[in-house]
């Protein structure tokens, strides 16, 4: 207040014509908006490795800009099921690009885009491209699972009620943490197995349960890290265009289904990107980011098409043009809506017509989502 008065006076004294109040004139006042506009949101993580990572928050219906959130380096984000709370992990080095690192969990209130709290976790947190498999909930939303890499891999378990890390579960040779029922998670391993871990509320944990045999071949047909969640199961896309469904069967990670979406298709099509598959539960349809001319090393290529896949019929329903996206998310309303972002820094909203074999067409775009828009999430 004192400063405001000071500069107010100083400004007016200096400003070249002096101010004169007019009977008709009503001065405006500066304010701060308390809440973002209501409605479902889309979150785009613009990850940064030498400054603040920024999360763009847009309206799911019209991609209107609602505001942003700033966190630290190499940010990850996770949205609560009700869309009301966003968690992030990110890093703050003492001199931004060097010096002692502090790994921080932030909890944000989405409606007001404000901080609720923050606390530090282990510095082993992986400094890696934003991915859902690397920051997840467990046991409903009681715990956070945070991917570590030193580069030895482990999963940090964070008790959200206590606001602290309670365990570090070694997961050597494995990557990602996908919550299963209760306090468990699956992880993909370099020997092709999928392993199941479980922990107790006090942070104790036991030995992992391995799939009976390798579920995938990391050399010949590697799996993308970030699957679609289909009921209690996970559907992974492979570099070669197979969809693998993994379930917990009698407590053991098990491959329960697998089929190709590219067999017999001309043009060497394959999935590409980071979050390559999204699932619309009400219709049982998966959407996969696809590129043609696939070869070894093309697995991060942006999408030329989005393929709608009927998981029960194991059939590609439709191939819609895409816009070089690397990350896709699906709204869960009755009619599917897709949000995808990628190389061009443009977020595209697609409307999907279930009557037209789930064809997707652009219905809105938001440009300039930042230098490295790595992940899109939605509460729709």
């Amino acid at each position, binding site marked *: 207040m004192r400063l405001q008065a000071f500069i107010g006076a100083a400004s007016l004294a200096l400003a070249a014509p002096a101010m004169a109040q007019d009977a008709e004139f009503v001065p405006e006042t500066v304010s701060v908006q308390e809440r973002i506009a209501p409605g479902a949101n889309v979150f785009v993580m613009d990850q940064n490795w030498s400054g603040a990572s920024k999360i*763009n928050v847009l309206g799911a219906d019209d991609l209107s800009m609602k505001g942003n959130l700033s966190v630290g380096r190499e940010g990850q984000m996770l949205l609560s099921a009700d869309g009301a709370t966003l968690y992030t992990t990110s890093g703050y080095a003492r001199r931004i690009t060097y010096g002692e690192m502090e790994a921080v969990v932030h909890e944000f209130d989405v409606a007001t885009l404000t901080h609720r709290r923050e606390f530090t976790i282990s510095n082993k947190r992986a400094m890696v491209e934003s991915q859902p498999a690397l920051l997840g909930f467990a046991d409903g939303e009681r715990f956070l699972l945070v991917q570590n890499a030193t580069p030895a891999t482990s999963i940090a378990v964070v008790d959200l009620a206590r606001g602290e890390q309670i365990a570090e579960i070694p997961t050597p040779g494995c990557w990602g943490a996908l919550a299963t029922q209760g306090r468990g998670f699956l992880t993909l391993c370099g020997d092709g197995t999928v392993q199941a871990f479980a922990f107790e509320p006090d942070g104790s944990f036991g030995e992992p349960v391995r799939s009976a045999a390798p579920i995938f071949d990391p050399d010949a047909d590697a799996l993308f890290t970030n699957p679609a969640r289909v009921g209690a199961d996970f559907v992974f896309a492979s570099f070669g265009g197979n969809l693998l469904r993994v379930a917990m069967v009698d407590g053991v990670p098990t491959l329960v289904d697998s089929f190709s979406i590219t067999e017999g298709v001309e043009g060497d099509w394959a999935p590409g990107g980071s979050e390559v598959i999204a699932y619309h539960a009400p219709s049982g349809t998966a959407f996969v980011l696809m590129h043609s001319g696939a070869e070894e090393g093309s697995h991060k290529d942006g999408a030329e098409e989005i393929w709608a896949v009927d998981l029960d019929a194991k059939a590609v329903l439709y191939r819609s043009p895409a816009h070089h996206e690397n990350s896709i998310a699906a709204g869960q309303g009755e009619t599917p809506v897709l949000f995808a972002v990628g190389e061009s820094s443009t977020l595209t909203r697609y409307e999907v017509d279930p009557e037209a074999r789930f064809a997707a067409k652009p219905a809105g775009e938001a440009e300039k989502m930042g230098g490295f828009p790595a992940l899109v999430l939605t509460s729709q």
Partner: protein
Amino acid sequence: MTELIDRLLKRLDRTVETRARRSARTHGRRSFMARAGAALVGVAISPVLPFDRRARAQEAGEDACEYWKHCALDGNLCSTSGGSLTSCPPGSEASAVSWVGTCRNPEDDKDYLVSYNDCCGKAGVSSATFCYTSQGERPGYRMGLYNDINWCMANANTGYHCTVSVVVGLADA
């Protein structure tokens, strides 16, 4: 006579071009992102004269920086960052101090004092419209008019988010 008109038109063209450059440039004092020259193209192909444009321009128009209240605004528009013309986006805070511009309202042809408050505590929104106008702007020896500085300087949280344009008085022109 023809020569005079020619010169006048040339001058107008140049003014349009200059103003377009000024309001839509890709790298300004507070611009942290390379930006496409969309607004520049939009102006360059427009046949409308600058004063007409200005009178008609709405803040939400195709060249928001031409809006009269933004005549000395070097920064991101809060109205394209989740806020409005006079309100900071949710989760940010208004700067405790501000600079001032004197801008002419084309509707009543009067000069108004506009307080430019920065909104603080967050990074800028990368898709925000960046304006770079400086009518009446002066260096730091006229601190109250200076727009090359981060006006979040007196806040506890100093990250620059965006800028609002708040009409606080009628100037005695």
